[in-house]
């Protein structure tokens, strides 16, 4: 004798948005999308490798050319900076406090990318004693985003564990994978703002080997302020 299924349950199953067929369809779609993303990711990563290499070579070429001609080659000013907060939250005056908040540097050893322009340079001037900053290279940007990159998803801090996460949020800016994100940040593209705000502020570890003295500026054998390309070695110690 077959079991009698109540009418309401039959209807519920029919109506169910989680029925087997619907789930299957959804899953297939998703798998297809993931495949697309991964192929795109591969091609773009390849493209960007070439691009970075070309950029480096171009720089060298221009320098050599200038040397040959006996003139000077002035390198373009850096567009990207990585800032790390190296002082705690106690006893910070209101203006630097506000600026640090605006830059999302709310705790010690937190780091953010920032595009350099007149306004942001002025902001950095105010917070110099509380941060150290410099111009990161590709490998630093990569390491930060791969190893310590967390996304801001639904007001939550979630580790980036797949390209799908990036695709969901940044597809409309043509950023679909990790390498896209790295490229956008490093080259400070059109959608730098969106790529950067997608990333939660980096939470770094205290540096291996320690600091000399945070109270002095880097220029004076201390640690705070602009340290240009030496930020890369510091990040390696803190990542």
């Amino acid at each position: 004798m077959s079991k009698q299924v109540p009418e309401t349950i039959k209807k519920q199953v029919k109506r169910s948005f989680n029925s087997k067929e619907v789930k299957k369809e959804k899953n297939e779609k998703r798998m297809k999308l993931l495949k697309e993303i991964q192929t795109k990711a591969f091609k773009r990563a390849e493209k960007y490798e070439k691009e970075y290499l070309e950029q480096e070579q171009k720089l060298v070429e221009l320098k050599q050319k200038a040397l040959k001609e006996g003139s000077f080659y002035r390198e373009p000013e850096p567009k990207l900076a990585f800032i790390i907060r190296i002082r705690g939250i106690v006893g910070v005056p209101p203006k630097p406090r506000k600026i640090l908040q605006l830059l999302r540097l709310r705790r010690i050893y937190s780091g953010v990318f920032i595009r350099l322009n007149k306004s942001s340079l002025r902001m950095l001037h105010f917070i110099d004693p509380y941060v150290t900053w410099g111009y990161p290279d590709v490998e630093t940007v990569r390491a930060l985003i791969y190893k310590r990159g967390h996304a801001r998803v639904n007001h939550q801090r979630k580790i980036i564990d797949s390209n799908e996460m990036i695709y969901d949020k940044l597809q409309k800016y043509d950023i679909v994978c990790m390498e896209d994100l790295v490229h956008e940040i490093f080259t400070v593209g059109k959608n730098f703002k969106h790529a950067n705000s997608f990333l939660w502020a980096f939470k770094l570890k205290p540096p291996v080997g320690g600091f000399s003295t945070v109270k002095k500026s880097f220029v004076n054998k201390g640690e705070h302020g602009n340290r240009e390309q030496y930020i890369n070695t510091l990040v390696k110690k803190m990542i």
Partner: protein
Amino acid sequence: MTTQQLRPIVSVFPIKGKVKTIKQVPLPSVFSAPIRPDVVRFVHTNMAKNNRQAHAVSTTAGEQTSATSWGTGRAVARIPRVKGSGTGRSGQAAFGNMCRGGRMYAPKKVWRKWHRKINTNQKRYAVCSAIAATAVTPLVMSRGHRVNKLPELPLVVSDQLQSLTKTRQAVKFLKFIGAYRDVEKVIRTKKTRVGQGKYRNRRHVLRKGPMVVYARNLGIKKAFRNIPGVETASVYTLNLLKLAPGSQMGRFIIWTESAFKLLEDIYGSWEKPSKFKSGFYLPRPVMVNTDVERIIKSDQVQTVLRNRRPRSRKYGKKIQRADPYEDMSVMLKLNPYYKTKLQKQKELEEKNKEERKEIVDKSRKEYEDWLYFSEEEEEEEEEGSDEDREIEVLSDEN
């Protein structure tokens, strides 16, 4: 309300002979009024205050002394003390609420508000609720009445009951109809009151038994008067304190037929107002259909709902992920080009290595050649000047 169109039928029973239906009457609308224990509780607690008698403490109690404080400097507390000497009372503290023989704190006054006004409509609401509850068997049982052997609830009985005059007849009727078990309970559980009421003319405590509601008193009042636990009431003046004793709804009521029918006129319905309470309609329930589960599962509701959202991971497990620079599988998930990149780097390194090796080999060979050549030269030109040889060596090094 739909109940108005189809009202259930209640049987009317005789008062002796055989327990069978002699007539059927429709259930008055009151019994479908909303059962609101909160309203009944509120009205009951306030109504119960209305039969209180004023009491107070004497106005002069504790004040009948001329005590004065001794002031400071006498190593005693500054409380007023009784004047004079020659008696134990002298020097004792007086007047304060903490003093022995002193006046109490805030002496009770007769003009305390003993009675409570309740809105008429609230009172009527409560009574309607209480009456409706008397027809709900679980409520009557939970109030503690023994109603297992009753033929029906609400229990309606022929009007002949109103003409009973003898207590014996009344008891016989109760036994006949199956209500005597409730009375037996009352008799069995008669106890001396706990507390000081026992010597304040409230010695015994009785449970509440059945209540008999009549339309006309033709002797019924006296007949049931002496039966412990049983109360009688006219249907025109139903008292909430009797319908829901202790604000507990579900009194066991025995209605006479005419009393039962009169309920429709006295309390009215949702369409027709009461004939005796001007402008009064039965209270409306907040929900007409209280089967919430059914409503939610109905087609009309389910088809309009949105999709169920996926379970939020907010308080769930944190997604751990290995370091991509240590775990290749994680790296490849994020950057599928990585492996190829490493391969290419390796190839480049190898190529550079080879090139480097060529250059190193070439220069080494050149050096060795020069060394061999200079050795030969040494052998050949032993007599040459030191200076010349040195110059030669230098030029060869360049």
